[in-house]
């Protein structure tokens, strides 16, 4: 069975105000909740693959969460609620050409970009420095903790790709809370001026730790912040993987055809705690969370695909088992990854400065380790 979301309880005020169905580029306040967008573009295999990816990402996330509970991993942020957004994004992009710059919650859902993403995320969660190194050719950046700083990076990368005449585009994630940072605005504004091939995805999960969207901004939606930049803004039901897929595929087409950036808001609800360190019962209204659980993105997709005869309980079980095995292997490998404490000094500069070399030499003399 699909793991339950990390914390538990129904009504979803934000989502009730959004439409799905064919109208994936919808506006708040215009309709009722439906199932999954009926997208002619996606064949059955892709829909099944997206379903599997969504389930897997929750399994991965939950395993990392449990590692923290067992004292084996550091603070981490569960994915619960964002699975449809990740699947929609992953499948709409071209892993060979496009880049993804995550915030921190997304690394478990980008398996399509390469197995390195998850393997390194496990290392990252284990507190191993190699977790920061997602090797080429995988086009995903490591987690970003300093919120919204990744948006200027994405714009710079897209600008560079444009100048180099490279195909592809850059997609950057940030949370609803992170949109309050100057970096988000500065970067989107500059992206507009540059016509940079970048897609800025706001994952609106209703909360920034304990701070609800209503304390974050008076803007009616995050997508309409696009007016400030003169770029298109798109508002999508983020519990509908296909709607997200459609929105991102469309934004990608714009980007790679020189039509510039798009701001995409994907609306969902954070079904778990902020991180392993958080107690959401202190501030999340129980009824609101319960409503959101009725629209759990995995359930939405599963009931839709089961209805179409594309998915069965056996598929779920097989997917969970495979994800468990995948994750087990990653954790075993991660925990067995050797570490020389002197790596502390590596990669600060291309070559150690004399002072750093001296510090390292002293360290090695005191602690042993490679010299």
């Amino acid at each position, binding site marked *: 069975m699909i793991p339950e979301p990390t914390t538990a309880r129904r009504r979803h005020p934000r989502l009730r105000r959004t439409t799905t169905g064919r109208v994936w580029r919808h506006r708040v306040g215009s309709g009722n909740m439906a199932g999954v967008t009926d997208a002619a573009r996606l064949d059955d295999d892709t829909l099944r693959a997206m379903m599997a990816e969504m389930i897997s990402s929750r399994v991965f996330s939950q395993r990392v969460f449990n590692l923290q509970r067992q004292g084996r991993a550091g603070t981490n942020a569960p994915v619960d609620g964002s699975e449809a957004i990740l699947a929609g994004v992953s499948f709409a992009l071209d892993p060979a050409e496009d880049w993804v710059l995550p915030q921190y919650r997304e690394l478990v859902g980008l398996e399509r970009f390469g197995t390195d993403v998850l393997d390194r995320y496990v290392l990252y969660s*284990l*507190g191993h420095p190699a977790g920061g190194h997602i090797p080429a050719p995988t086009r995903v950046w490591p987690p970003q903790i300093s919120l919204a700083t990744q948006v200027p990076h994405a714009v710079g990368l897209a600008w560079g790709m444009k100048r180099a005449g490279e195909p592809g585009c850059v997609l950057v994630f940030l949370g609803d809370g992170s949109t309050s*940072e100057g970096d988000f605005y500065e970067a989107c504004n500059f992206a507009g001026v540059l016509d940079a091939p970048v897609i800025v995805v706001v994952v609106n999960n209703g909360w*920034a*730790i304990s701070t609800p969207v209503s304390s*974050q901004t008076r803007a009616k939606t995050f997508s309409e912040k696009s007016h400030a930049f003169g770029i298109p803004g798109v508002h999508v039901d983020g519990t509908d993987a296909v709607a997200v897929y459609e929105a991102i595929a469309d934004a990608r087409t714009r980007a790679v055809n020189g039509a510039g950036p798009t701001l995409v808001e994907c609306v969902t609800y954070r079904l778990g705690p902020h991180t392993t360190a958080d107690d959401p019962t202190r501030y999340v209204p129980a009824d609101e969370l319960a409503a959101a659980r009725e629209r759990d993105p995995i359930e939405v997709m599963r009931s839709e695909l089961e209805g179409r005869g594309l998915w069965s309980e056996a598929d779920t079980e097989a997917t969970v088992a495979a994800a468990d095995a995948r994750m087990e292997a990653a954790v075993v490998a991660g925990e067995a990854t050797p570490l020389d404490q002197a790596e502390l000094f590596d990669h600060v500069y291309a070559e150690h400065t004399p*002072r750093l070399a001296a510090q390292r030499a002293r360290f090695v003399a005191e602690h042993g380790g490679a010299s």
Partner: protein
Amino acid sequence: MTTQPMTMLEAINHTLHAEMAHDDRVMVFGEDVAANGGVFRATEGLLDAFGADRVVDTPLAEGVIAGTAVGLAAAGMVPVPEIQFLGFSYQAFHQIAGQVARLRYRTRGRFDAPITIRAPFGGGVRTPELHSESLEAQYANIPGLKIVMPASAADAKGLLTTAIRDPDPVLFLEPLRGYRMLRDEVPLGEHLVPFGEARTVVGADDPADDEVVVFAWSFMVEMSRRAADLVADEGIRVRVVDLRTLVPLDVDTIRTCVEAIGRVVVVQEAPETNGFASELIATINDEAFYSLEAPVARVSGYDAPYPVGQLEDSYVPDAERIAEAIRRTARAA
């Protein structure tokens, strides 16, 4: 005065309650400080006690948290903003260094800036990047700020009270590791610790009876105390001095100790290059050069970014590293 054992975190929370009760102008705001009581619960209960007018969850934007403090101060309020982790004060650097620090100066005294910016920092608790960095030196070079770094629960109360009542902007930096690990007797009544008065944590009545003096601040005081214990068994008499405030600095105590003892170790968590230890060494050079019997030993983090969890114990100075510097300094010709 009656005292009660408290952790540093409890002492901070207790002090915020006391100061909000004491002065109606005090306002607490920042990310997650109200409903959630702060991610560490430092501001727990303030919303209930003082209401949503005075305890405010802000949008996630450090620049405007610091920037609005300037305007609130001009409106006659006493702003006590929280930056969730000191590493994210970088997002507010232009406001803190360029505006908060010089509100009084730019307006030639028209506006006071009784702003206390609280921020946790420091290593040892396996946090993600930019949660642990010790940035005090980057702020110490900025005129107009005061920099306060308590090392005990009682001092957290005494110094935070002084900070909030001080007419100048104060960076009040709280060691993450100390929040729950430092626990001591805290006076329950009004308790102010003046700025610029160092505290002797370990040492003889007469400094001249000590062999090495260690200057430290924040959680490194605790580490230095442990190092002093280690070497005490070896017969080295160590004096540990908690600087408490880096700006203003207690130059008199520093001078007196160096003159009396002649052998000095300075301990910091921050990277070595241009950390505040450098300033201390320069100050000692100015004030007591002729009393030095050996070079001042610096124990620091390395000149590398604060590392991930599996490397952090190698990075942050521990009691053994400090003890080794003490031994070396005691022995130096």
